């Protein structure tokens, strides 16, 4: 189902070498996803563009290159890799990439946050949207859910991987540390948790709101393998980082990718600030944002 089938991909950072993924296509997709994000939130004047834009490369890499996914969606997800979004507020990027990876019609992005829509403000299973396996939005719960799915994979002798994404501010929630402690203690080594380290949360930079110190040291003290992905907005770097993470699975430890991103990436006035965490652009701002990201694969 990926536009760039896995078999044709160069798996960076591992011994398996296959063909080079069509990076130029993926770069086009990234720009198109940015447009989708802006247009979704603009239309309903609500939603979360900042974190979504910062994680665009990650989602594209994950769904187009990294994950071994099936063509059709089944809740049980047997025999494929699964992804869980813990920081559910960045639904715009999730929806765009899901739609553009074939899970549901791209035009449905038009219904984002509207009443009676399957595209709820925060992702939910409740409306039956393909691609979503658990609701999120209330922060701090996704890693636990991902661990459960990973343990079921082990019980089922299914050697596919579980991926999860969470925010950096989100890691202030204690449930994460319960989960982080548990995963190490139980050697959940089919799990890759990426942290969107954009250094921002709602009330300001994470360092001002509640300085979290050295995240790498924290995860390591909790027994995880940590991979630092310093340029989370460089597609190649993201693919490499996630492949490195993959190569660290199966070694008795859960794997954490600390992915440094720029909040609002790709729209200059949204970048490097928490201001656009949960605010939609007005008409004029939308125009500027779209101009900076010209249509590539076709708007919905």
């Amino acid at each position, binding site marked *: 189902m990926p536009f760039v089938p896995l078999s044709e991909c160069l798996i960076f950072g591992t011994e398996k070498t296959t063909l080079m993924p069509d990076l130029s296509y993926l770069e086009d997709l990234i720009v198109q996803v940015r447009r989708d994000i802006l247009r979704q939130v603009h239309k309903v004047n609500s939603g979360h563009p900042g974190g979504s834009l910062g994680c665009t490369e990650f989602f594209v890499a994950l769904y187009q290159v990294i994950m071994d996914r099936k063509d059709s969606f089944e809740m049980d997800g047997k025999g494929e890799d699964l992804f869980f979004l813990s920081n559910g507020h960045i639904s715009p990027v999730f929806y765009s990439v899901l739609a553009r990876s074939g899970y549901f019609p791209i035009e449905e992005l038009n219904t984002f946050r509207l009443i009676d829509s399957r595209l709820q403000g925060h992702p939910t299973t*409740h409306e039956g949207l393909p691609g979503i396996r658990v609701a999120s939005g209330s922060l701090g719960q996704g890693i636990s859910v991902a661990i459960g799915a990973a343990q079921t994979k082990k019980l089922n002798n299914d050697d596919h991987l579980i991926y999860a994404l969470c925010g950096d501010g989100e890691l202030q929630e204690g449930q994460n540390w319960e989960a982080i402690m548990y995963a190490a203690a139980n050697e959940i080594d089919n799990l890759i948790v990426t942290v969107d380290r954009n250094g921002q949360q709602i*009330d300001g930079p994470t360092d001002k709101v509640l300085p979290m110190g050295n995240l790498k040291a924290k995860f390591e003290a909790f027994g995880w393998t940590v991979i630092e992905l310093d340029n989370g907005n460089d597609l190649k770097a993201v693919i490499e980082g996630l492949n490195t993470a993959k190569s660290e699975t199966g070694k008795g430890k859960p794997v954490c990718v600390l992915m440094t991103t720029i909040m609002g990436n790709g729209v200059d006035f949204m970048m490097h600030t928490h201001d656009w965490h949960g605010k939609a652009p007005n008409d004029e701002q939308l125009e500027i944002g779209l101009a900076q990201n010209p249509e590539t694969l076709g708007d919905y």
Partner: protein
Amino acid sequence: MKKYTDSGKKDTRSGFGAGLTELGKTNPDVVALCADLTGSLKMDDFKANHPERFFQVGIAEANMMGIAAGMTIGGKIPFTGTFANFSTGRVYDQIRQSIAYSDKNVKICASHAGVTLGEDGATHQILEDIGLMKMLPGMTVINTCDYNQTKAATLAIAEHHGPVYLRFGRPKVANFTSEDQNFEIGKAVTLQQGNDVTIVATGHLVWEALQAAETLNDSGISAEVINIHTIKPLDDKAIIGSVKKTGCVVTAEEHNFLGGLGESVARVLAEQHPTPQEFVATQDTFGESGTPEQLMDKYGLNAEAIIKAVHKVIGRK
């Protein structure tokens, strides 16, 4: 019929913010805590004016409740601020043990309650918080109806010793109660006198109840409207007194019909004066994304729904 006029739509959370700003000036013991939602809770002014009395706890609501409990030791009056879901369900056991059972003078101030939170959808739209908080012994539970009342309640709870849950919302709604009102915890306010039906409403539904009463009046039905801003302790007397006169009751709340105001009223009546009752409330479903108005409409939480319920309950007398 009394006439109530909207002096201009305002959000109840701004009433909280204004009250907190005032408390900052008048009561040096008041401290404020927030879990990364300072702007949404309208706590910026307090933060700016009293940085030393403002505590940013980050996204860690359980810790916030514990810290607030601890701060009372030594005489502070902590006001915690976050969304209603994260003020209650997320931290129920922390409130239970460290605040309610420990009888700590903490004011739990909760915005974005109910479906009128709007587009964020069901994960954020708690419809169970009144029920959650009312079950805690010693907790006072308040749900205010407009900006002015929320501001007055914010000032009043600072004077009351003991844990309080103050519930308010996100959208701009009619502001119709008086600016200089005295907020009496636990005392129902009868907004309209009537003989045919009692409407007991709380929060955003109070204005809707007034609208309903006007329409009903035009069709010859005289509705008594009670603004039951305090759900616990419940003003049983006011409710029973009215119901004895009207013979039927409609309760209206932005909450699941299970566990909330409606069931509290049903219980009081079952114990003292069994009476036909209809429940304007959500019907045991989660909410969803949409505009506040769309959601009020879809989930039957407006004047129209109240009118329908009134007709039904009068038919059951």
